[in-house]
């Protein structure tokens, strides 16, 4: 097994994700509709209720839409990361997971390839959202669109790894709906995606600390700062650490024996 072998495998996994993405255009649209609803409808309603003070990385007063845009980018990555885990559960139920498991190439490499592949597909959706948000008046620096790329990629891999880790614990597709409620919504609402954490602290100290320990908060801040051409070192360290931790956990907990179903055996 040489490097070319590993690269061919990576290429194959990325291409398959892309082919599946092309097949599921409605998934692309729904991934865009969700954050756009927040940006256009929710933000319009909350604009008056939530005044945003001047906080880094912003140099001046900003609209509420501008504040929540990075969080909505991460929302796309969050839903996609979890949905991709859903597809792993689906692959497992349909038997196509066996194709992956029968590869002689390192399973860790294949899983990481899958995470990166899913992340790359998610980035297409995030940039489509940023494009539409631009039309709606959210205009970060043009160079920020480039600077935010590695941040988005890291966050996407982190959320994909969390999803993969969770999917190893889900026996059936139906159980995943519960995880969505117990993982996606708490992660999103207990973060700085929709409101600055100082606002949360004014309401509740303990909720503030939960938000602080939520890796999604730091993922949002990493993206927010990068979009405005600044580096948030703490957010980068925590996001990178969480990415490494959950990737390792996802690879370790990926048990092929749970991933396939034997034919029923008579007593």
């Amino acid at each position, binding site marked *: 097994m040489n490097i070319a072998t590993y690269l061919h*495998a990576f290429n194959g996994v990325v291409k398959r994700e892309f082919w599946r993405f092309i097949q599921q255009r409605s998934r692309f649209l729904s991934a865009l509709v969700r954050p756009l609803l927040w940006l256009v409808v929710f933000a319009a309603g909350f604009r008056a209720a939530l005044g945003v003070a001047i906080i880094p990385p912003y140099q001046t007063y900003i609209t509420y839409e501008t504040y929540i845009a990075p969080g909505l980018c991460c929302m796309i990555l969050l839903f996609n990361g979890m949905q991709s885990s859903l597809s792993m559960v689906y692959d497992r139920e349909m038997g196509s997971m066996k194709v992956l498991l029968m590869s002689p190439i390192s399973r860790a490499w294949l899983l990481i390839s899958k995470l990166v592949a899913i992340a790359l597909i998610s980035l297409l959706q995030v940039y489509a959202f940023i494009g539409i948000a631009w039309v709606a008046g959210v205009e970060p620096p043009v160079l920020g669109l480039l600077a935010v790329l590695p941040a988005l990629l890291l966050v996407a891999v982190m959320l994909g790894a969390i999803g993969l880790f969770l999917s190893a614990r889900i026996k059936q597709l139906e159980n995943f709906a519960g995880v969505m409620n117990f993982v996606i919504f708490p992660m999103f609402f207990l973060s700085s995606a929709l409101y600055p954490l100082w606002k949360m602290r004014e309401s509740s100290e303990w909720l503030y600390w939960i938000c602080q320990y939520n890796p999604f908060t730091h993922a949002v801040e990493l993206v927010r700062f990068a979009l405005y051409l600044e580096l948030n070192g703490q957010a980068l360290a925590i996001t990178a650490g969480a990415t490494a931790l959950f990737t390792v956990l996802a690879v370790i907990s990926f048990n092929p024996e749970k991933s396939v179903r034997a*034919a029923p055996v008579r007593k």
Partner: protein
Amino acid sequence: MTEPATLEIEHVSHHYGARVALDDVSLTLEPGRFNALLGPNGAGKSTLFALLTRLYRIQQGEIRFQGASIEQVPKRLLASLGVVFQQSTLDLDLTVLQNLEYHGALHGLSTREIRHRADRELSWLGLADRKKEKVRALNGGHRRRVEIARALLHKPRLLLLDEASAGLDIASRQAINMAVRSLCDERQLTVLWATHLLEELQPADPTVILHQGRVKASGTGASLCEANHCEGIAALFEHFTMQGPD
């Protein structure tokens, strides 16, 4: 020319909780031959396949590929193994070629090499003109052929087929059976063909009869019939599978 692959299963047992799926199973595949694993549904064939393909860990016993324990040489085993599972593992929404490309990439092949090999295997199986069609558009027999083409793409030395022809009409079953048999002659492939359909076997085939997780008999169909005073494989199968547990 490379020597045909060898596979030996020795005293393998497997349990699902309290249920015994395989009980002290031992068998050796004849290299370069069409080896038949005959057993009714629930005999333990799929569990044995899951162990051979390392989807399950071996609980008891040993499986050796080319003389080495498969736990010692997992990558060598997987690189040499072509498998058609009982349940289809094709992605229905991708084209035939895309399914093959994905499999080939997972075996470290370049896209160019995969396309070259895919053309060869699909032509041989009469599917050259279907490669750009979605798998969903193919009938059951053609889907099985695609799975065989995919299993051959990385030039395996050992081909495992678990009920590969189940659910197909007689003509499709025969066509697939004959195609796989020809691989033993033309490519010196060692084949393990698991089935519960007696008409797929020939008297000269090395045959193992598996029932309730145990090997009931092994040898060529003809020699087993003679030894057990049975007139044919159907009678032989009935002889062993109508017996209750020992």
